[in-house]
């Protein structure tokens, strides 16, 4: 009875809870044969879920063609049988119609025609490989054009390359660093069709000896050349001739890439507005806060009042005659050492014409004045760099010797209420040597470094008629004011560094000493005396600064699974002696600075990273800006800063999140930075019409700076389309002393950039960049508010390329600019350029027409603190240029 009751309960439960019943399993058996009955061994038998198309079970037929497979259900299941050389069978499974034998039909081909060669993006560890041919568009000539097309990469107007917001630190060609920071030479000259792959090296450590010690956050680029590009001379040239007036644009480039030797040399000239110097200019990676070393005093004290550089491409407003010659060679010696020489000479004569309306907002007043400029700048820039490097796994040595000479002669007129003539001669010479040797033994590193810098910057400024008559000529007008300055610097920095690593913990200690000798001489020639006699000593400067700066930098870091915490505790003693050689006065200062830094890196996943950090940096800044006499910066700015040593204390908090998925072409980052900058000197600026006098007073003042940057980029690989959104917002609040009254200025700035590039079609490509910029400046005083200054501008650039046939293509470029402010001023401009191109074998011909609408002027505004300046530039007239490109 008891047993019967239990049975009744059991059956009832099973009815109520059918899932408790053992699940049904099905055993599927069968035999695979061909049409003649021959058994087929090693055939694949898969059971597929009809909904998800996933394989849920499978087996392989044995030597006799038999198989046996167990499946959980026949519902929604299909059986698929396949084997090389036979047609695949796929059918529903049914328990009702169970088959014993499956007959496969012979066919010649079975597999889908899957021939995929060269993935456009492949990732191996920390290296991302981009296949160059995939990212090269028909209009691209040089490798710089292709690099700009890569997902996550941005190249700014100066050629600086960033990857997901981080600037690249090194640029290699087949593993060799020929160009250092002058990688624009490679970007502008290496043809795209000789590069097989572009590699992006994340977490790059250029010094092999430090590879296991410090996998930094550096990013490098390496170009992998095709075999056809190696071991031969590659030469190419461009001949360009046009009107109006007579225009030319020529270049000849030669390069050679071998295993132990690399060479790039070029000569270029043009008078079509192109600024050639960017090619050889240093494109430096940003140095993190706290690691910036203020080693050289500002070497250019004097300048001419002139039109500044703007957001318009130089070919529209530069009237130039430029020549550039550069030569770069790297030779790998037998002991794997590398000897490198980079030398360049740039000669240019440029004319600039334009106007300026300046508004200076003061607590109780607004000053405005107009200026019309016509300036000719002749410059000669020579630079040579000799580099010797040994980079081995246990040993690293590098010596870099650099010499630079910049001779600049600027001459022009500034028309205000009267006509002023100004001319400035500058002859800057700079020689520096940088030496470092690093040796690794077991888990320890010892490193010795030594830096020497010598610079000399004589300048002479002539202003006619003479300004600041109240200072120089007892308020009586005079014809000519001549200012001569000479600033000499001699700096050294010698240090020894130890690094010790134990498992995840690393300890670093650097002991060093910096010395500086700065000599500033400036004087004016007596206005009433044409023989060049100097003015009174009180107006002149002859100051010598000597600095002795021993320092100790201690740093600790812990790294585990790429999570890293770094703590740095640098301490330094600064002993500065200032000697006034005119008055025989001497003052000495001693300060001790402690500048801690902390940085935390947390990779949440291999693609997503969070960073946070804090930096404190106290520095002695620009001692050469402190002088008891006067310095005439330009015809309307006179400075006198007779005060104590300038000290700046900086506190910076930063945080960022970054995501990068190169395989899916998704990148984004958000960074925020808050800086508090305290200075012990406040500059008092006194305006008298267009003339400005400034002097420094001892008063601690604070500047607050908040910056927010965001970047989102999506690259659709199959559609070859890239979309980017970049936003930069900032707020800077600083204290000013204007007309002896303290005030605060807050500058808000927002910039939103939208970029799109479509390269999907073989007959058409399209690129567009839209930039919206809003700037606002508030001037506050303790008692009253001053009107806000607001500027708004829009810039849109569109480029269309039409590929009519394989040989012929046309292009259309439009630049649209719009500006308005809250003073009811506005302007808008539209520029059109067009071109037609014909390619035949090694020859490439292009006719381009620039400024088809023949715009004559362009206006824009620059807002800085309490000064708003409206500039108008004379634009190059419409012109036609015929260019012939060829290789030989």
């Amino acid at each position: 009875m008891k047993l019967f009751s239990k049975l009744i309960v059991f059956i009832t439960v099973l009815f109520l809870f059918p899932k408790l019943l053992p699940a049904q399993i099905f055993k599927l058996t069968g035999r695979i044969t061909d049409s003649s009955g021959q058994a087929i061994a090693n055939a694949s038998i898969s059971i597929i879920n009809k909904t998800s198309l996933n394989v849920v079970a499978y087996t392989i037929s044995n030597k006799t063609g038999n198989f046996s497979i167990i499946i959980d259900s026949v519902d929604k299941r299909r059986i698929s049988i396949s084997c090389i050389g036979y047609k695949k069978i796929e059918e529903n499974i049914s328990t009702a119609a169970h088959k014993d034998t499956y007959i496969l039909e012979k066919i010649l081909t079975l597999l889908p025609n899957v021939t995929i060669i060269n993935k456009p993006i492949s990732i191996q560890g920390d290296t991302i490989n981009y296949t160059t041919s995939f990212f090269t568009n028909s209009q691209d000539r040089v490798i710089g054009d292709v690099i700009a097309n890569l997902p996550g990469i941005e190249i700014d107007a100066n050629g600086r390359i960033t990857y997901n917001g981080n600037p690249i630190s090194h640029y290699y060609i087949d593993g060799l660093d020929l160009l250092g920071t002058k990688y624009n030479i490679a970007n502008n000259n290496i043809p795209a069709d000789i590069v097989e792959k572009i590699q992006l090296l994340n977490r790059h450590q250029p010094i092999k000896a430090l590879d296991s010690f410090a996998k930094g956050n550096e990013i490098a680029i390496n170009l992998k050349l095709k075999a056809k590009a190696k071991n031969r001379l590659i030469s190419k040239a461009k001949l360009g001739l046009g009107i109006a007036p007579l225009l030319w644009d020529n270049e000849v480039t030669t390069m050679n890439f071998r295993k132990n030797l690399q060479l790039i040399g070029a000569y270029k000239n043009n008078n079509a507005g192109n600024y050639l110097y960017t090619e050889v200019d240093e494109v430096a990676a940003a140095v993190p806060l706290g690691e910036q070393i203020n080693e050289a005093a500002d070497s250019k004290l004097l300048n001419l009042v002139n039109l500044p550089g703007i957001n318009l491409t130089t070919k529209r407003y530069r009237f130039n005659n430029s020549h550039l010659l550069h030569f770069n060679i790297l030779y790998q010696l037998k002991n794997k050492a590398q000897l490198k020489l980079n030398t360049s000479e740039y000669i240019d004569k440029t004319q600039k014409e334009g106007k300026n309306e300046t508004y200076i907002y003061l607590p109780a007043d607004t000053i405005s004045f107009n200026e019309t400029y016509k300036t000719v700048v002749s410059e000669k820039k020579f630079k040579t760099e000799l580099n010797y490097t040994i980079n081995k796994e246990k040993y690293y040595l590098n010596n870099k010797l650099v010499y630079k000479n910049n001779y600049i002669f600027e001459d022009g007129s500034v028309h205000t209420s009267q006509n002023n003539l100004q001319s400035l001669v500058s002859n800057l010479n700079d020689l520096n040597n940088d030496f470092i040797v690093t040796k690794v033994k077991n888990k320890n590193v010892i490193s010795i470094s030594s830096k020497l810098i010598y610079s000399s910057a004589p300048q002479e400024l002539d202003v006619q008629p003479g300004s600041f008559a109240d200072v120089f000529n007892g308020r009586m007008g005079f014809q000519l004011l001549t200012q001569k300055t000479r600033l000499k610097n001699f700096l050294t920095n010698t240090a020894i560094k130890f690094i010790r690593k134990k498992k995840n913990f690393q300890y670093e200690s650097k002991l060093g000493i910096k010395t500086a000798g700065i000599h500033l001489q400036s004087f004016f020639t007596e206005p009433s005396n044409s023989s060049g006699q100097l003015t009174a000593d009180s107006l002149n400067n002859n100051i010598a600064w000597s600095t002795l700066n021993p320092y100790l930098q201690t740093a600790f870091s812990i790294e585990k699974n790429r999570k890293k915490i770094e703590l740095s505790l640098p301490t330094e003693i600064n002993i500065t002696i200032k000697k006034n050689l005119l008055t025989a006065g001497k003052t000495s200062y001693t300060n001790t600075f402690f500048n801690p830094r902390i940085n935390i890196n947390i990779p949440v996943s291999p693609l997503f990273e969070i960073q946070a950090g804090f930096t404190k940096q106290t520095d002695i800044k620009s001692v050469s800006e402190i002088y008891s006499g006067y310095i005439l910066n330009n015809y309307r700015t006179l400075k006198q800063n007779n005060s104590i040593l300038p000290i700046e204390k900086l506190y910076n908090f930063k945080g960022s999140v970054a995501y990068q998925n190169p395989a899916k072409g998704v990148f984004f980052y958000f960074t925020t930075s808050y800086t508090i900058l305290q200075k012990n000197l406040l500059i008092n600026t006194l305006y008298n019409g267009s003339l400005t006098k400034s002097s420094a007073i001892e008063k601690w003042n604070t500047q607050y700076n908040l910056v927010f940057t965001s970047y989102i980029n999506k690259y659709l690989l199959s559609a070859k389309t890239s979309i980017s959104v970049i936003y930069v917002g900032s707020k800077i609040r600083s204290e000013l002393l204007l007309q002896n009254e303290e005030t605060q200025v807050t500058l808000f700035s927002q910039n939103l950039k939208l970029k799109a590039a479509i390269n999907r079609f073989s007959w058409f490509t399209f690129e567009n960049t839209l930039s919206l910029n809003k700037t606002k400046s508030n001037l506050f005083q303790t008692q009253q508010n001053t009107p806000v200054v607001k500027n708004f501008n829009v810039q849109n650039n569109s480029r269309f390329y039409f590929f009519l046939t394989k040989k012929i293509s046309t292009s259309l470029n439009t630049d649209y600019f719009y500006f308005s402010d809250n003073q009811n001023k506005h302007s808008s401009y539209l520029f059109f350029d067009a071109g037609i191109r014909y390619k035949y074998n090694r020859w490439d011909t292009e006719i381009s027409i620039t400024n088809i609408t023949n715009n004559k002027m362009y206006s824009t505004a620059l807002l800085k603190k309490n000064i708003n300046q409206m500039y108008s530039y004379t634009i190059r007239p419409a012109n036609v240029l015929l260019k012939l490109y060829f290789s030989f």
Partner: protein
Amino acid sequence: MHLFIHATGNSKLNKSMKTNLLLLCTFLLIRQVIFAQTDSSSVLLAKYDFSILNDTTNQNANRHTDIMLLDIRKNFSIFYSYLKHLGQKQSNEANNIQISGTTVKASTRIPFADKESEYIEINYEANNYKVYDWISKQPHYYEDSLIKPQWVLWPDTVTILNVPCQKATTSYRGRNIIAWFAKNIPLQYGPWLYNGLPGLIMKLEDDRNQFSFICREIVTKVEKEPAFVPYKNPEKISKKLAQERKRLRQEDPIASSQKEWGISFSYGDSNKPHKKRAYNPIELQ
């Protein structure tokens, strides 16, 4: 291939029938030879990016990389370093140059000499495999039976090279493996000794991120035979000896050269013992 001989009622075959039969046999033999040649030609070539971490104590250490080629033929496959054999082939071609009508050997540096020297032949019909290598004076090989991994299928899917793939895992020869096989390429082959999935293995890695094979190219219409230089006259040795030679070659090349070739090198301070290099073979058990 079957020879069909139609039996006739008259067992004595006349002369013309004999000729026809001879022609038929000749034709079928030729066809068999052709078919056999077709049987041994490549059905599919799959190239893999291979990366392995030798120093397992440091995840950030440099990885050894290579491009491996899986050459799939009917019932057997060959797996080897594409770069190594390409370099060897180029060197062989460059080595024989004509100077004044005489063939001379130019001593050229062999490209990719540091790449993997070992190659594997798997015979699926016989269910065994052979591993060839050249470490000592004579190339060698060892033979072993092919153990099929016991795979567990997962519903996860991913697309690799525009091919839909499904996930499978196994524990095989001392490692936990994650593999992705192509659902529409029904070949049970894969890199190294990994096999037995219902589709071609497109990606494979271990769970400790120490090594990976990632398919970078598939060629189904093989028009030109890939560069493969088989070792001539290899001697058969035991698996244990082969693995010992391999380990010594990787960890201490100097000791290996001394032992296998009788050549001694010395550099640096010869009194100090040489530090062994890191070695992390795929097969741990």
